[in-house]
C-alpha cells in the first residue's frame, strides 16, 4: 500500500523540477492553482463578543520569507489556525495553493505547519509522532528518518517527547512541517525558546526553503528577528492589517531618520542648523541628534563654517522602535513606559 522510498524520492525530484519551471516565470496570476500561495480575503474571526481577527486580507507569495508580525494577542495564531482549517472563519475566506486547506487531498504535501511547538502527545516518542503523521498520506518511513536527521533530533528520536526542552520541541515541530516536502510552510513563532545557534539554524533553513521557491510564512512578535529572516512583512495589530510591505520599506516608512553629529563646536553648529523643520537634541556634551536634515546637508553647513566634525552618522530608526511605533495603538496589554538605560522614555 505504501509507496516505496525510491518512488517517493523520484516524485520529490519531479516535483522540484516542475516547481522550478513554474518559478521560471514571475508569479503573475494571483490565485493560480499551481502557485504556492496563501490568500486571505476579508478574513474575520469572532469568539463571542471578542473579535480576534477583523477583515484581514493579504497574499503570501512564493520565493520569499514573509514575516507575520504583531504584538502578543494580535491574532497571528488565530489567523494561522484558520489557514489550516482548524478554526472556521466567522466571515471571509482563506485559501492555500488555490484551495481551502481541507479540500486538499494530500494536505501534508501542500502545507507544512508548525502551530505552537507543543502540538505533540507528551507520551509518544518523536519518531512515532512523525510516523503517525506520515502514514496518513503514505509518506515512507525513510522520510521520517530524513527529517529527524535534518532537524538534528536523531539522538532523542526514540525518547518520550514529554521530556523535550522547548528548543527540541520546536525542532520536532519543524520536522513535522517538513515531512511532506510541502510547497508552502507555516510556522508559528519558530524561534521561541531556541538558543543563538538554533535561531541561526532556523533563519538559514527558512531562507533556503524560500530560495527553493516555496512560500514561507513565519509569525513572530520579535521585529528584530524578522528583519534578519524575512524579506516581506505582514503586520497586524488587534486583528487588523497594519502594514503589508517589504522589510526595507517598513523601516523607512515607520519613523523619520536622524543624524548623529559629534563635534567640539556643538553649540555653534546647533545655532547654524536651526530651522523650522529641524529639531536638534543633545544627549551628551559635543553630541547632537539632528532630525529634519540629511547628513549631506549637515556636512555642507559644517564645512561652510569651518567646523570640524568628529562624526557624522545617519541613524536608522531601530526596527524594534519602528515596530512599536506602528503598533502602539494596537497593543492588547500595555505596561507603562519604562525608562531605558540611556535615561529616555522607551
Amino acid at each position, binding site marked *: 500500500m505504501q509507496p516505496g522510498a525510491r518512488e517517493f524520492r523520484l516524485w520529490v525530484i519531479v516535483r522540484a523540477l516542475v516547481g522550478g519551471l513554474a518559478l521560471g516565470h514571475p508569479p503573475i496570476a494571483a490565485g493560480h492553482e499551481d502557485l504556492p500561495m496563501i490568500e486571505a480575503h476579508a478574513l474575520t474571526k469572532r469568539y463571542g463578543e471578542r473579535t480576534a481577527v477583523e477583515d484581514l486580507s493579504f497574499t503570501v507569495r512564493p520565493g520569499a520569507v514573509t514575516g507575520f508580525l504583531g504584538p502578543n494577542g494580535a491574532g497571528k495564531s488565530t489567523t494561522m*489556525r484558520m489557514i489550516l482549517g482548524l478554526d472556521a472563519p466567522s466571515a471571509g475566506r482563506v485559501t492555500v495553493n488555490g484551495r481551502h486547506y481541507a479540500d486538499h*487531498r494530500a494536505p501534508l504535501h501542500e502545507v507544512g505547519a508548525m502551530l505552537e511547538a507543543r502540538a505533540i502527545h507528551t507520551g509518544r516518542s518523536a519518531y512515532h509522532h512523525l510516523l*503517525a503523521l506520515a502514514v496518513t498520506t503514505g509518506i515512507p518511513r525513510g522520510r521520517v528518518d530524513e527529517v529527524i536527521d535534518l532537524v538534528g533530533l536523531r539522538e532523542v528520536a526514540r525518547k518520550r517527547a514529554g521530556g523535550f526542552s522547548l528548543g527540541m520541541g520546536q525542532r520536532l515541530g519543524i520536522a513535522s512541517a517538513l515531512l511532506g516536502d510541502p510547497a508552502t510552510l507555516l510556522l508559528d513563532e519558530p524561534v521561541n525558546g531556541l538558543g543563538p545557534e538554533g535561531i541561526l539554524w532556523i533563519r538559514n533553513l527558512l531562507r533556503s526553503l524560500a530560495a527553493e521557491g516555496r512560500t514561507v510564512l513565519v509569525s513572530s512578535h520579535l521585529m528584530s528577528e524578522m528583519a534578519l529572516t524575512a524579506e516581506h512583512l505582514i503586520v497586524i495589530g488587534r486583528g487588523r492589517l497594519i502594514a503589508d510591505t517589504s522589510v526595507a520599506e517598513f523601516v523607512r516608512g515607520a519613523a523619520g531618520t536622524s543624524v548623529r553629529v559629534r563635534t567640539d563646536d556643538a553649540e555653534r553648529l546647533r545655532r547654524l542648523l536651526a530651522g523650522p523643520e529641524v529639531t536638534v537634541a543633545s544627549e551628551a556634551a559635543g553630541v547632537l541628534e539632528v532630525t529634519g536634515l540629511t547628513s549631506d546637508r549637515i556636512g555642507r553647513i559644517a564645512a561652510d563654517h569651518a567646523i570640524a566634525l568628529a562624526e557624522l552618522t545617519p541613524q536608522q530608526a531601530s526596527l524594534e522602535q519602528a515596530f512599536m511605533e506602528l503598533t502602539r495603538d494596537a497593543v492588547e496589554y500595555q505596561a507603562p513606559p519604562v525608562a531605558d538605560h540611556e535615561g529616555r522614555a522607551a
Partner: protein
Amino acid sequence: MTTLPARPAAASGPAVRGHVTQLRVLHSEWIKLRTLRSTLVTLTAAVVVMIGLGLLFCAVSANRWPHMDRGEQLRFSAAGVSVRGFLLAQLAVAVLGVLVVSGEYATGMIRATLSAVPRRLPVLWAKAAVYTAVTFLAMTTASLVAFLAGQAILSSQHIGTSLGAPGAARMVFGAGLYLTVVGLLSVALGTLIRSTAGGIATVFGLLMVLPLLTEALPTTWSISEYLPSNAGQALLAAHREPHILAPWTGFAVFCLYTVVALAAAAAALKRRDA
C-alpha cells in the same frame, strides 16, 4: 469496519499516492494507540482485573457452596460468576476509550492530527475502529480465560460448567462484547467532551451512578432496564427476570445509545474549532 460518509470520487477509489485515505488514517491511529504506554498499562489492568476477579469470585463460591441454601444454589450461575470481573474491567476500558481522544486535546496533538486529516471524520472512524478491535480481542480473550480458569476452580465442588451449556457462551462472549461497546461509547463521549476528567466522569456517571439513582424510583416505571449499562448487561444475565430486558434486546438498546453518541461526536468534531 465503519464506513465512510459519501464523499467525492478520488478518495474512495484505490489509494492514490499521497492522498489521505481511510485505510491510511486507520494505520496512523493504530500507530498512535500502540505507541503510548498508557494503552498497555490500562489494557493490562483491564485484563488482569477481568481474570483475577473471576478467579477470586469462583474460589469464594466454591468455598461457600456447601453452606449455601437451596435457593442460592439454584440461582448460582457458574458461567456468570467467572466473568463477573467485567464490572471493574469496564472502568479501565472506559478510561482508555476517553483518553484515546481527550489525550490529544490535552496535549495539543489534536491540531497536528486534524492538520494531517483536515476532513476530520476519518480520524473519529479510525479511532473508534482501532479501539473497538483492540478491546474486543483483549477482553474476549480475557473473558474466555476467566471462564475456563474459573470452571477449573468450581469443578472442585462439581459445579463447573462448559461453553456448551445453555447461556454460557452468550455470557462469556457477551462480556467481551459489552466491554467493547463500553469502549466505543467512551471514545464517542471523549470526542464530545474533549477533557479527560469530564469525559471519564460522564462515562462513569452514565454506566454506574445512573442505575443507582433510578433504584429510588418505583419499579413500575420501567426506566431502569433501558439505562445504557443495565440494557447492555442484560447480555450477561444468567436468568430471565422482570425489569431486565431480553439479552440481545438489551444489547441492541445499548448499541443504539452508542451509535447516537457516536453520531453526536461526529457532528461536534466536524463543526467545532480545534
